[in-house]
């Protein structure tokens, strides 16, 4: 690396645009590609399908896409945390199915255990969080590899789903609160109001950060870039609302996804807990010597995985207005893990961001949606998704190697 004289001095106002560009370019050369490949990939995917079928970018298909990907994105957020730790959770899909069954059972009208929809959802995700915590305890305290523990979980919870639904084959969900999770669309005005509030909150948080850095005499990021980034996010958000409003409106399910993303990004990047998750994933022994309770972090992360799988399961159940024998089955597990990995979270632990759940899910969903729209078979869909996954993992491995070399 460079041996420039010290720039650790404080009290500089902000980085110049040139300095930012240089630093970004250096990082790129060193193998830190960030979200660049995924954004380029997304643009290519959208351009390809749009050229084949102009309906691809229609407002109807857009709102469809948003509700389609909500469940997978939610589950993938939990996967990101597990991967950050350098572990894996194979049980998430069927655990999400368990959440679906619990809400469905708890809303059965006139049954002795019927509860309000919101309560049912709360109980369901609490149960899946506990399931995650239980599996995490085997990893942390007994020392069984997470692959094996959660593989056992995959089999066990699939068995539970078959056992519970077995005779009926399907449980219909009639509770409107639950069904609204995936089937409610905001009115035009409400959509704009939500976007406005979100942008205002983001701007306030950004401003607070800049002020705090100024007060401690540390360089702030380039203000032009900060404002540009804010404007971009505002543009995307309002654009999405405007586009969705041409059809059914902005879906509640996607608002939930955004809330999950913001909350868990905050946890991962702004709290001690999140910092420790990265530390354990990067070097568990170093984390232990620094006084971090590694076992507790492991259990907590598996609880997050179970919790988010639960929310994802509720979204899926609500979307179908029912749960059946296929709950949590199909390609859900692989889609959720692929989403996190394609989005840029490393399988080797310690590297990745919560937003990669959305990025990866966007790639998978846009491809799946496009292939469905063009009428190709799912054979093609699987092959293409497989190739994208391989490309993403290759990119990760290569960038890791370059980063390690850059240090020597």
């Amino acid at each position, binding site marked *: 690396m460079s041996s420039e004289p*010290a720039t650790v001095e404080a009290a500089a106002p902000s980085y110049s645009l040139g300095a930012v560009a240089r630093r970004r370019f250096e990082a790129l050369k060193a193998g830190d590609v960030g979200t660049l490949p995924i954004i380029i990939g997304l643009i290519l995917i959208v351009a390809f399908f749009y050229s084949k079928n102009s309906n691809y970018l229609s407002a109807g298909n857009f709102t469809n896409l948003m509700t389609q990907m909500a469940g997978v994105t939610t589950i993938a957020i939990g996967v990101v945390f597990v991967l950050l730790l350098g572990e894996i959770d194979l049980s998430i899909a069927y655990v999400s199915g368990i959440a679906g069954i619990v809400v469905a059972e708890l809303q059965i009208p006139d049954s002795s255990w019927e509860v309000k929809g919101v309560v049912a959802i709360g109980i369901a995700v609490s149960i899946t969080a506990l399931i995650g915590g239980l599996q995490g305890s085997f990893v942390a305290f007994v020392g069984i590899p997470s692959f094996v523990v959660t593989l056992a979980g995959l089999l066990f919870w699939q068995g539970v789903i078959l056992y519970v639904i077995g005779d009926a084959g399907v449980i219909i969900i009639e509770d409107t609160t639950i069904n609204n999770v995936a089937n409610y669309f905001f009115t035009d005005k409400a959509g704009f109001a939500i976007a406005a509030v979100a942008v205002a909150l983001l701007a306030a948080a950004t401003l607070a950060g800049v002020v705090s850095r100024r007060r401690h005499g540390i360089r702030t990021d380039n203000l032009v870039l900060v404002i540009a980034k804010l404007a971009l996010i505002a543009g995307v958000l309002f654009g999405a609302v405007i586009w969705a409003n041409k059809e059914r409106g902005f879906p509640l399910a996607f608002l939930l996804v955004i809330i999950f993303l913001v909350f868990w990004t905050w946890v991962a990047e702004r709290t001690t807990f999140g910092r420790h998750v990265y530390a354990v994933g990067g070097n568990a022994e170093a984390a232990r010597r620094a006084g971090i309770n590694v076992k507790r972090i492991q259990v907590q992360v598996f609880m997050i995985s179970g919790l988010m799988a639960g929310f994802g399961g509720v979204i899926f159940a609500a979307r179908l207005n029912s749960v059946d024998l296929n709950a949590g089955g199909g390609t859900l597990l692989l889609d959720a893990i692929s989403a996190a990995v394609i989005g840029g979270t490393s399988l080797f632990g*310690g590297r990745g961001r919560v937003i990669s759940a959305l990025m990866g899910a966007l790639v998978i969903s846009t491809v799946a949606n496009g292939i469905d729209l063009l009428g190709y078979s799912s054979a093609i869909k699987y092959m293409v998704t497989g190739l994208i996954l391989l490309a993403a993992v290759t990119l990760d491995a290569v960038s890791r190697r370059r980063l390690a070399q850059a240090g020597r």
Partner: protein
Amino acid sequence: MTSAPAESTPIPTAPTTPTLEARGVSKSFGSVDALIDVDFEVRTGEVMALVGDNGAGKSTLIKCIAGIHPLDGGEILFDGQKTSIHGPKDAVKLGIEVVYQDLALCDNLDVVQNMYLGREVRDFIGRLKEAPMEAQTADTLKSLRVTTISSIRQQVASLSGGQRQSVAIGRAVMWNSRVVILDEPTAALGVAQTEQVLALVRRLAEQGLAVVLISHNLHDIFEVADRITVLRLGRNVTIYDRRTTSQETVVHAITAGVPTKVAGITAE
């Protein structure tokens, strides 16, 4: 440099209380006796080298002091007071910091994040306060005259070996620590980087810390240490004053020294 005792005998007697003292420490792993009745001490403002061949028990002794291994026998005194260290946190609370051979840095975190790992500054709802952490990191590195790191927000993975060692040492001294233990700090470094790190070690002692330096490299030790404790096969050989001994004498003690209990440290 100030308070290092100036006796010319290889067995200095103690005019002041050692900052850290281990008395009669024993530790075994199964049937292997790693430490047998070992004494050790270090005082404020001195660099105490700890040497010995592989398997002499240096790392085990350090891990006992740092609370990673529980003691099988003996006791540890801090400022002359008997203390019990039951885990790394107890050692840290006393002001004992260890910089491990394998660095114990997280490659995927940046310099500031590593400096504060496990001791992050946060507000009442657990939010990290990045700005003060960044400012304090810059100050600490500046006070140690670590000037080669271009950005303290870059990942540790992208630093050179000497820079990483500087970060690890910087982390150890940022916490009002009293005793800093360095395990082979120059093992993986080139010539220029070794010089940098040794200068840093010297500076720590000048700033009033008690420094323990573990090394295989006698050249390094004769450059910075005030006294030299020799271990062999898990027992004490002796303590030398660096100014009145030669490398040959120390080598002989490491390879063929007669393990003896050193008189004068154990105040029975």
